[in-house]
């Protein structure tokens, strides 16, 4: 948008208008197609942000307590790495500290998904050709995708600003705008990446990797600086998530930081339009190379591995790096000032019973586990993707039984979840500096809950194939309960809805086998029921 205007400035006006012909219709199409996805994302971000003031108020009821927690958090490098520095000890200031970066992270994921979905996905599926053959300008599809992301981000900004207005209008607006602007930075980043690769899946993966890098840069930068008063390090300033926290919402807002976002969005947008104008529809700057004239793939299992190996490698690398980063943060956890009982309480509720370090590690392990649930859902749902795209049909029309076909993908889903959790555990051990045993054990224990969610995905796919995507909602709810539950003091029955709520708090807590075994049994029943359903039902066409 900004970029479009900037870029067509010197062209005759009519030509610019022609380039954008049909944008309005395409935006409406995009919003119509995303009429469920965008509201759900916005609602989740909103719930995360707006639940904060209440839970902070209930945990730290007096100003003195809040000053105390602000002081301890500000001087603790682990906490700074995880949440960023604390700039003010008001309810609003603590809200921005605790949730700002994560609100931005979610907005970024939402935005990159929207943009890739309406650009590269459309070209890869061949739909774009038909659309572009109509009265649709060359720049209209990209513009429409970015506008759809802008609508989602603007709605987020407005609702966040409105919802937090009682904490201070300026701060609320700054936080809302910063979260939305982070979303737009990654929307335009996705727009660039979508020009580079022919695969929508790869475009999403690569943009997510950039987002992960932005988080790590910010965390590394924040853990290094001593916090209150001093400015952020260079590393933090390299990350859009660092810009977000540096708008200092509710703490003498620094509005000029928003200009960084504007500049970033404009530059990236211009680059995306530049690249898009220099390529043909469906093509990319990283073209796919020719493959072998004959192949060695000979079994359904080998095919499944071939299709999923890229994503397994990506997740493995991500978990190892995240583990090392989180492990590194843990070293500082013991610095935590211990005289605030409430702080201890919340840390302990977040995942542990004894020892702040163990509690911190347990929290990290729990986070890895919940993210691994997203991996297992995406991996199991490859089956659904193969079926609905008609690629499963000829394979199953060959001498391949349905169970054998499914088994290949499920081995990768369930085994892959174990692999990435082990790598995450190794990373934690490396980052923390030794004592791998308890951390690895804790990571493996998470598998019981991860597999339950994977099993539920198998069940949905096998018995209710049209509702298979609901597995994402299940994983999302588990993530949300695990994420905001402890801070929000959700009642135990609600916490118990998530399989993660039944796991022993490890490391540090006591290993209790009963719930783990029960979860494993539930997972096995789900998988068995799903496969039975798959064997009996019609293949969708």
């Amino acid at each position, binding site marked *: 948008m900004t970029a479009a205007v900037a870029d067509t400035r010197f062209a005759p006006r009519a030509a610019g208008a022609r380039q954008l012909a049909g944008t309005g219709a395409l935006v409406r199409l995009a919003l119509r197609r995303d009429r469920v996805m965008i509201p759900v994302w916005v609602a989740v971000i909103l719930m995360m942000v707006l639940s904060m003031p209440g839970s902070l108020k209930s945990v730290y009821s007096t100003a003195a307590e809040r000053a105390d927690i602000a002081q301890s958090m500000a001087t603790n490098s682990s906490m700074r790495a995880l949440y960023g520095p604390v700039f003010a000890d008001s309810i609003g200031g603590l809200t921005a500290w605790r949730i700002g970066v994560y609100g931005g992270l979610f907005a970024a994921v939402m935005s990159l998904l929207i943009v890739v979905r309406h650009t590269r996905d459309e070209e890869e599926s061949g739909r774009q050709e038909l659309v572009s053959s109509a009265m649709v300008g060359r720049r209209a599809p990209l513009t429409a995708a970015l506008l759809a992301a802008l609508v989602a981000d603007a709605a987020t900004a407005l609702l966040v600003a409105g919802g937090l207005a009682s904490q201070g209008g300026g701060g609320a607006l700054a936080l809302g705008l910063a979260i939305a602007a982070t979303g737009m930075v990654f929307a335009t980043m996705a727009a660039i990446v979508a020009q580079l690769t022919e695969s929508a899946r790869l475009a999403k993966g690569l943009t997510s990797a950039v987002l992960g890098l932005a988080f790590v840069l910010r965390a590394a930068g924040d853990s290094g600086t001593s916090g209150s008063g001093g400015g952020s390090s260079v590393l933090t300033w390299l990350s859009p998530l660092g810009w977000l926290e540096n708008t200092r919402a509710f703490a003498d807002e620094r509005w000029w930081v928003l200009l960084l976002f504007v500049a970033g969005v404009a530059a990236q947008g211009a680059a995306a339009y530049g690249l898009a104008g220099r390529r043909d529809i469906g093509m990319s700057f990283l073209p796919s190379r020719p493959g072998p004239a*004959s192949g060695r*793939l*000979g079994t*359904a299992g080998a095919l499944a591995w071939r299709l999923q190996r890229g994503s397994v490698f990506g997740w493995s690398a991500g978990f190892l790096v995240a583990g090392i980063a989180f492990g590194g943060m843990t070293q500082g956890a013991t610095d935590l000032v211990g005289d605030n009982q409430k702080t201890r309480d919340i840390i302990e509720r977040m995942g542990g019973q004894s020892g702040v370090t163990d509690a911190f590690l347990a929290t990290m392990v729990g986070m890895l586990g919940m993210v691994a649930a997203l991996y297992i859902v995406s991996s199991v749902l490859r089956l659904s993707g193969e079926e609905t795209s008609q*690629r499963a049909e000829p394979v*199953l029309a*060959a001498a391949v039984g349905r169970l054998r076909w499914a088994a290949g993908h499920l081995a990768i889903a369930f085994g892959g979840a174990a692999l990435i959790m082990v790598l995450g555990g190794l990373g934690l051990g490396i980052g923390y500096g030794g004592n791998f045993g308890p951390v690895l054990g804790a990571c493996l224990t998470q598998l019981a809950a991860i597999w339950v969610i994977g099993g539920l995905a198998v069940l949905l796919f096998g018995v209710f194939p049209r509702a298979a995507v609901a597995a994402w909602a299940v994983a999302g709810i588990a993530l949300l309960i695990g994420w905001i539950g402890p801070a929000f003091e959700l009642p135990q029955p609600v916490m118990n809805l998530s399989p993660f709520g039944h796991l022993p708090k490890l490391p540090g807590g006591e290993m209790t086998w009963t719930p783990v075994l029960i979860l494993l049994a539930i997972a096995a029943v789900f998988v068995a029921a799903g496969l039975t359903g798959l064997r009996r039902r019609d*293949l969708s066409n």
Partner: protein
Amino acid sequence: MTKAMTVSELHKSFGRTRALDGLDLDVEAGEVHGFLGPNGAGKSTTIRVLLGLLRADSGAVQLLGGDPWADAVALHRKVAYVPGDVTLWRNLSGGEVIDLYGRLRGGLDKARRADLIERFELDPTKKGRAYSKGNRQKVALVAAFASDVDVLILDEPTSGLDPLMEEVFQEYVKEAARERGRTVLLSSHILSEVESLCDRISIIRKGRTVETGSLSELRHLTRTSVTAELASAPNGLAQLPGVHDLDIQGLRVKLQVDSDKLDAVLRSLTGSGVRSLASTPPTLEELFLRHYQDDGAGGTEGARAAEGAVSR
């Protein structure tokens, strides 16, 4: 002759939609069987039931003497299938897909594979999306013809192929049936393809079989148009059974007659003395259009519409 496929009284519904409503199909071993019908008649649904991808609601289905649902894997060793719309994996080359399908079936004839790739002018090193519609079809066709199987099930397999490639396709189907004794079930809308390849055909409409037999048998079921110039005024033509659309202008006669009643009409005409005679056997198009028409069972209207379509 043994049957390669038998389907009788097959019913299949999707929710409230009745896809198959008592369909019958018999395919002899070693024949090329044309499977025809308008869009949405249930051809692909029948094929999916035959492949064990869908489960029949009721009715008997046999493929190579086995139950396609229960014995799917064993039967599929002997079956190659080409869908009408082939989708490939983005990151797999055509060659890899051909070899994969070969191995997933009973095996692949390397020499034939090379021969087919050359004849179809296919570049096996391209990947998934890089192939055009026609080339994606070729990938599946090469895999099917090179596979060591007894039955080929082809569901509108040549959509997107150019006429040259269509010819290559027809050669391979003929060779598969005549020289290798394979059974072919060919669903198609391309009438020339059906005419040149199929030993017998079945026409289905709204989930039921409306006609089955060899082409010459089916031709008998439709009408021949006759135009004659006579020596004297015609006599009693209107009373003959099977005569339609009779148009007499002096000594000129135009009429349509059911093909199996042609004999009596000719006798009557020669009775009046024939100066010139033109008789057009029903074209395949007429035959199909008559069956494809919505109320084609009524006959006249369908035939007229068919006439109109053909004379254009």
